[in-house]
Each structure stands twice: as C-alpha cells, then as structure tokens.
C-alpha cells in the first residue's frame, strides 16, 4: 500500500498552504447554509403542536449538541496518529480541538437549559443525558489543563492523546443514555420522509441546513486555530519567516 498521501500530513507547511485554499470556500458555504437555515428555522418552520415557538431552539441545540459529540472521536483519532506515527500536526489538532470542544459542549448545555426551563420547568436535572454531557465538558477542560500542567511538552502531548482516547467511551454513554436509562431528556428523533407524519420534511429540512452550517463553522474554527498553532510552533523555520516578511 502506498502511504505517501498519509505522510504528507506530517508536513505542517503542506497543511498550512492547502488549508489556506480551502478557507474561502468553507466560509462561503457556511454563510449560505447559516442564512438559509436560520431564516427558515426561526421564521418559517410551523409552530409545534405542543411546544409552540419554544421548539425553535431545537434548530440551535441539536446541531451544537451533535457536533460536541464529534470532538472526542476526532481527538482520539488524531491522538492515535500522534502516538503511533509521532506526527506533529496530529498533536496540534488534539491541542486546539480541546478548548473548541469545551465551548461547543458549553453551548449545547446552555441551549438545552434554556429549552428545558420552558418545557420541563427546570434549568437542570441530574439525568443520564445531562450529567454525561456535563462530564464531557469537564473532561475537555481536563485535556486543556493537562497540557498546561505538564512542563515536558512531549509528555504532555502523549498524556493528552491518551486521555482523548479514553474520553471517547463517554461519547457512547452520552449517545445511548436516553435509551439505557429513564431520563427527563427525550430520546433521539426518527425523522420521517412523509409530509403528513410527525417529524416530516417541514421539520427536518431546515435542520439539515443548520447542521451543515454548524459543522462548517466547526471545520473553519478548527482549521483557523490549527494554522495559528502551526505558526507559533514553526516560528523559527524558514518558511514561516518568509511568510511573515511577505505580508
């Protein structure tokens, strides 16, 4: 098997140049999806038969919560690549993804709380779903502080990679918490193709736009902070110095 495609990722310079070309396209598609999605979701989606207008926070909460579950798997893959192949770029991803993930998890918790206070009648309850997501928030803060707590940067990188792999187990718990246990949180929705059924296209089509927008926003934030970290780590290298001189 030819591994050159894989080893290219070992070059921060190669990634920096390539991602610079992706960014305008990603930003353009995000703005498009976000405009369509948010206008549709907030103004044109029919009011819910039970929850009325409150239900529209669904279009923020679901995309944010679903992307927040992607961080540990992403960091675990990057962490494994770093541990096995000692690829520098992979460690950069583990490092920059942790604080981003903490922000997205905090947003999921906050939007869920706002939804909960209006429908359930409480901001917070210690049920399986809410508690396991809060645990993810603290685990991500743990990865962030582990990095700063260890002085040896190589050792910190390995410890963070390992914690990221272990943290993945919690993602499975979050995902299935609503099926395994009695919770106040509702289970995942099964969307329907038919227009005359519950959860039909009038509900999920705008959700698809919002999910795309939030996923693109995630990709853009990850790429921007990865590029930033690359520049800081490679500041003494020839290509970064030339880049600074040119600008």
């Amino acid at each position, binding site marked *: 098997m030819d591994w050159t495609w894989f080893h290219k990722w070992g070059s921060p310079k190669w990634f920096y140049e390539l991602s610079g070309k992706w960014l305008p396209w990603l930003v353009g598609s995000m703005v498009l999806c976000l405009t369509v999605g948010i206008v549709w979701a907030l103004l044109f989606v*029919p*009011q*819910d*038969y*039970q*929850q009325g207008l409150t*239900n529209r926070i*669904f279009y923020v909460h679901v995309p944010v919560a679903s992307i927040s579950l992607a961080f540990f798997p992403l960091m675990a893959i990057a962490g*494994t690549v770093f*541990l*096995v*192949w000692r690829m520098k770029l992979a460690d950069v991803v583990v490092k920059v993804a942790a604080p981003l993930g903490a922000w997205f998890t905090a947003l999921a918790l906050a939007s869920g709380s706002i939804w909960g206070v*209006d*429908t*359930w*009648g*409480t901001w917070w*309850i*210690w*049920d*399986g779903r809410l508690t396991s997501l809060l645990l993810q928030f603290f685990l991500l803060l743990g990865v962030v502080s582990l990095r700063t707590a260890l002085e040896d940067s190589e050792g910190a990188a390995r410890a963070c990679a*390992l914690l990221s*792999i*272990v943290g*993945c*187990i919690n993602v*499975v*718990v979050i995902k299935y918490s609503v099926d*395994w*246990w*009695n*919770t*106040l949180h*509702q*289970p*995942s*929705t*099964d969307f329907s193709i038919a227009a*005359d*059924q*519950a*959860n*039909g296209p*009038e*509900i999920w089509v705008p959700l698809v736009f919002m999910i795309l927008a939030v996923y693109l926003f995630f990709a853009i934030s990850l790429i921007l902070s990865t590029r930033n970290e690359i520049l800081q780590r490679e500041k003494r290298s020839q290509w970064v110095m030339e880049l600074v001189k040119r600008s």
Partner: protein
Amino acid sequence: MRPHRRKRLGIILFIATGLSVAIGLTLYALSQNIDLFYTPTQVAQGEVAAGQRIRIGGMVREGSVVSADDSLAVEFVATDYVHDVPIFHEGILPDLFREGQGIVVEGSLDTAGVFQASRVLAKHDENYMSPEVKAALDAAGASSESHQMQPGT
C-alpha cells in the same frame, strides 16, 4: 507499517478495549441507580418506602386532574397504564402540564400512599409537528380506532 509502530498501535488498542469493557460492566451494574425515576409499577410492587425522597415518572391520567379553587393545590394520578399513583402538589405547574402528558414528580410517599410532590416537571417526547399534522394524525387514529371497535360493539 513499521514493527515498532504496529506495537504502539497494539498497546493503544489494548488499553482502549480494556477500559471500554471495564466501564461498560460498571455502567451495567449501576444501571438501576442511574435511572432518573421510578415507574408507578415499581411503586406498586413496594420498591419504595414511605418518606423516602424519590422521583416518579409516568403519564397524567386523563380526567384525573383536580385543582383547588382558592390555592395552587392540585391532585392528579400518575400512571404507566398498568399501575397508578395518586399525586398531591401545591405550587406552579410547567406550561406543558396537561392530561395525557408525561411528567416526572419529585417528593415522597406519605403513609396513606399519596405521593406528596415538591416539584412537578413535564416530559416531552421526540416527535415534533405542526398542529395541522397533529390534528390529521389524531383524526386518522380516531377513525381507525372506531373501525377496530365496531366488530366488538
């Protein structure tokens, strides 16, 4: 893949699998304690002692809600359509509270077997639709039910 890399990957996979199994077994053992609420059936089977602070989850039985005229006191029956638990609550109910709605109540059973709730929370399900779709579904459901009942009546 070089041998030392294959070895490192093997160690990582071993640690990850071992931890998943350990945590999986722990959660399986704890699953009873992680449940947020007891069901009316569990209460009827005597799993709960009077005075113990617990949560009960169920549906508000249709036609069971009685509110006091001069206070916020309300009585209703929580049911899982197998067993019932009478609930007493004095306080503000969530907007989604209505007959047939899923609820979670927090409090304790008194000696008479009435659950004295200090807090009532509304559950909502994972189905979202417009009032028009809901009405159409209800109409279709009602007609098929009456259709089913005809042979018996």
